[in-house]
């Protein structure tokens, strides 16, 4: 694992010591090479983990998420180059340093063997993200967004710290590798119910669960493009990953404690999809779409069947790529019109036809068109939830329909129709933007050919 972590840490001195005109080239090159190295982790010979050391490991669940994390850094760098072009050199380097620091913490979080280490790194990811949102966001609302983001996550995760320390006292170890062999059921008591809640709430807030999701639209909308990309693609998946790991220790309480959260998620996915239909702000629509997709992941994780785990893992990877691409597309609009209002930048297909093709592909993957991995994930989740309870098919089916509705609504509003008079002089698409979209879409389409690597450890 050090072959990934140390090069990532070394991106920081690379940034500070590079010449002015080489910072973006150097960092993009080396971050792409780091992502190449991380692909070796996909070679998972068994359902057990690849144990690199006492501190780091990877298994079929964390490896795809790690590859997604390392793939996303060069994409974030490419997406940020334009809006940072006017900043002083020191601030550009600081921005890249924040992204690199976040990347390092994320890599270590996904590969941590020990739960306390996982917790510390989970919290550590908040700091660079908060700095990115509050320092480089565009509107004054970014300060409020930063507050919501920080305090929602902290409030959820402080009980987790207490719970982890309590479990450490009880069992003597919080190592993932040992916990899977520790098959003791938690006795049924009030304190264990609160232990369950304490363990899960941090990840519920992070996912986010509908009801605890208010931080997400604010943070996603006010963050600059790299912040939105990393929030949507990776940070939400931290919650899913944490839930998948911690539920192994929380049986049998999960079988009855999960009900309220299952209901909230099932209802919440309908609500947030419906909210998307009423959005005027493009980034806000994509943010609420993330809540809806993550509600599916929550349902899958709480049902705890092999297929649902496969669906959850596939959906996390698929949504990571799709949502990041949608934010990049929204940013390409924003850089031209300086407005996030959808109807102000409409009829773009006539002006930017290639970008319209990317919009089409992103919208189609967002609505889980076959044979994309988005469909594979959603289908597995829908099938396993139907097996759990037949009635859920109604809500799931409604959610799939409304997802299709708002995805097509977003596509048609931004691309079709007559363009407005104030945007007929926008600049044509840059190679940078087209390359960015291609680098999002190509892995997504390639994974449709070989989805088994993202189906997790129950495949």
């Amino acid at each position, binding site marked *: 694992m050090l072959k990934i972590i140390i090069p990532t840490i070394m991106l920081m001195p690379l940034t500070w010591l590079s010449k002015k005109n080489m910072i973006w*080239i150097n960092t993009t090159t080396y971050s*792409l090479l780091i*992502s190449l190295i991380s*692909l070796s982790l996909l070679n998972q010979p068994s359902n057990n983990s690849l144990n690199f050391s006492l501190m780091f490991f990877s298994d079929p669940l964390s490896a795809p998420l790690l590859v997604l994390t390392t793939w996303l850094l060069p994409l974030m760098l490419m997406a940020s*180059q334009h809006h940072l072009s006017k900043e002083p050199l020191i601030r550009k380097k600081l921005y890249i340093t924040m992204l690199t620091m976040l990347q390092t913490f994320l890599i270590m979080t996904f590969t941590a063997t020990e739960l306390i280490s996982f917790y510390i790194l989970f919290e550590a990811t908040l700091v660079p993200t908060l700095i990115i949102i509050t320092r480089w966001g565009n509107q004054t609302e970014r300060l409020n967004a930063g507050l919501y983001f920080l305090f929602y996550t902290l409030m959820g995760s402080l009980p987790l710290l207490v719970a982890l320390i309590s479990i450490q006292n009880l069992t003597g170890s919080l190592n993932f590798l040992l916990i899977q062999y520790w098959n003791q059921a938690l006795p049924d008591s009030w304190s264990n119910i609160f232990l369950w809640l304490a363990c899960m709430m941090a990840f519920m807030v992070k996912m986010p669960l509908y009801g605890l999701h208010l931080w997400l639209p604010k943070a996603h909308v006010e963050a600059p493009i790299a912040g939105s990309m990393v929030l949507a693609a990776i940070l939400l998946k931290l919650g899913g990953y944490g839930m998948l790991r911690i539920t192994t220790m929380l049986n049998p309480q999960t079988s009855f404690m999960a009900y309220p959260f299952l209901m909230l998620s099932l209802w919440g996915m309908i609500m947030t999809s419906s909210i998307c239909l009423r959005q005027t702000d493009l980034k806000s629509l994509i943010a609420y779409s993330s809540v809806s997709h993550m509600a599916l992941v929550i349902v899958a994780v709480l049902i705890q069947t092999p297929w649902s785990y496969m669906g959850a893992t596939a959906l996390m990877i698929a949504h990571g790529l799709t949502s990041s691409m949608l934010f990049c597309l929204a940013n390409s609009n924003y850089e031209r019109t300086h407005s996030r209002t959808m109807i102000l930048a409409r009829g773009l297909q006539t002006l930017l036809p290639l970008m319209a093709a990317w919009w089409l592909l992103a919208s189609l993957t967002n609505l889980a068109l076959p044979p994309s991995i988005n469909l594979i994930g959603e289908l597995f989740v829908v099938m396993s939830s139907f097996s759990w309870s037949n009635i859920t098919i109604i809500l799931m089916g409604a959610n799939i329909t409304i997802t299709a509705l708002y995805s097509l609504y977003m596509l048609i509003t931004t691309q079709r129709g007559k363009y407005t008079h104030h945007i007929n002089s926008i*600049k044509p698409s840059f190679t940078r933007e087209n*390359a960015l979209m291609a680098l999002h879409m190509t892995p997504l389409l390639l994974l449709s050919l070989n989805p088994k690597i993202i189906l997790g450890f129950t495949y």
Partner: protein
Amino acid sequence: MAAGLLGLCTRRLLAAAATRGIPAARVRWESSSSRAVIAPSAVVGKRGPEPTTRWQEDPDTEDENLYEKNPDSHGYDKDPAVDLWNMRVVFFFGFSIVLVLGSTFVAYLPDYRWSRNLLALAVFAFFQGASPRSLDHLDLNAAQIEDRSKRAV
């Protein structure tokens, strides 16, 4: 009823006239069956436009058109040389190295489920009394991947 509807239309027309300052009617007209009257608006001249609410989240930007100085700009940098090299680096490392080599690596990853099944069969056969040399003559097709549809979802 017609008069009532006409009165309704009158109200709407006059409302339109009040907000837009356009004359709702050119001449005065009085209904013979009711007391409805349509008359030119008393508002002289067009009503001033309302102040535009801020429609841009990020106004007052000074956008630099990269295409102006460099028509072949790829969008990375103002300096054409840096811009060109940045584009080359992204395409070379992003597509040619990572995507091509990476997807080749992933495509050629062995099918571990099949090999685990084969190993399980060989071990089972060994413990059933087969000689160790039978491991050299395994039936590779026997290591069928189990029918997953029969598993619980």
